[in-house]
């Protein structure tokens, strides 16, 4: 068993507690489904789906459809992206495909080719409160 796991010697590596990590120079192929967060810095072809977040690093090259709660793209993605909450395409991000999100952010310098759709179903339509005096005024006007 590797000695790096000796107690008290593990602080050197920090991953933010992601459940799945595809590191640089790893090629992944197939359908990756998860309940937790995913970090990708390698090459992925297939499909990615998670209830958590997906962070796509600057070295990542992805040919896949992606569905997750929050998605951050700093690398290259060819495929459709569906963020049930937030999608951030960072300045080094390259996306070719259709995207949808509740909250969308595209940084200056990012490349995006495709259709975008903002879901507004989560936004509550808040009506201005009507004061009692205003109702009375309206009634008087009638």
């Amino acid at each position: 068993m590797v000695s790096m796991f000796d107690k008290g010697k593990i602080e050197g590596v920090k991953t933010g507690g992601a459940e799945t990590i595809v590191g640089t120079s790893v090629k992944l192929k197939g359908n990756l489904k998860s309940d937790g967060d995913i970090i990708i810095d390698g090459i992925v072809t297939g499909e990615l789906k998670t209830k958590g977040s997906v962070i796509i690093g600057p070295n990542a090259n992805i040919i896949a459809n992606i569905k997750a709660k929050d998605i951050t793209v700093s690398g290259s993605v060819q495929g459709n992206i569906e963020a049930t909450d937030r999608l951030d395409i960072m300045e080094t991000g390259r996306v070719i495909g259709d995207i949808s999100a509740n909250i969308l952010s595209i940084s200056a310098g990012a490349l995006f080719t495709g259709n975008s759709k903002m879901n507004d179903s989560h936004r509550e339509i808040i009506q201005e409160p009507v004061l009692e005096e205003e109702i009375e005024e309206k009634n008087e006007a009638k």
Partner: protein
Amino acid sequence: MYYYIVNPAAGGAKINKIQEKLIARLKRLGIMGEFVKSTGADDVAKLAKLGIERGYKTIVAVGGDGTINEVMNAIIDNDKIVLGVIPTGTTNDLADALGISDWYAATGILASRKIEQIDLGKIANKFFVTSVTIGFDSKISGSRRLSRGNFIEKSRYAFKVFTEAASFKPISAFLKFDNNYEAEADCFNIIISNSQFSPAIKKDKKLNDNLLNTMIITKIPGAKIFKYSYLADSSAIDLPRISVFRSKYIDITTKDPVDVTADGQIITKTPVRISVTDKKLRVIVSRKRKIK
């Protein structure tokens, strides 16, 4: 009554240094039992079976991960037996995972007798508790005992790590997870564990979540291998070189057959399938360690 199986060679014969204190402590706690010592690799399993025949219900492995592995494989078909652990080995990863820091703490934990069930992994028809490794760690696993020896043994271990690091070539591996997705990489190390033995694996992973955690380390620069393997400093690994996956089983093939280590012992060569099983190990754990 407890049945203690001692591996006298474990951890550079550590038992010789602590034996008298250990027995005194066990007597004081009222959990003294029968002590048997193994004489060789296959002897541990034979002694465990002998203990079951004699009617013992608690069998305590006194040694490291290798000793625990042999005891566990011998008792696993008998669901009335409970395993206890007193860590005296070169690697004590299972004890760490169970919240057992050292032999002294282990005695108190045995006396308080909190029993939990943990998942077991399976490889090549053998069960494992802690982890399976393929790559550089398997290369040096046979020499790990030297790392806890005297100055000369430590120097020999350092030399071994240094020479292996100089000549080590990454292993071209192909991993298939649950038949859903495949990973391909040139690997420095592949580690499949049943718990959180790695900082790269989320901290709430349980010993009984019915999943295995696989960590792939693709590359460590030659100069940093020594820092990683001998000085146990994981900062030698660059984060982008780490990959982590979770699955019920993994099929691993390599370009050329390489050694596969389970619970610190070389047990087979690639290609291999590693999986979690339905079997559960009943083990005495620290009251501070919560397995949900």
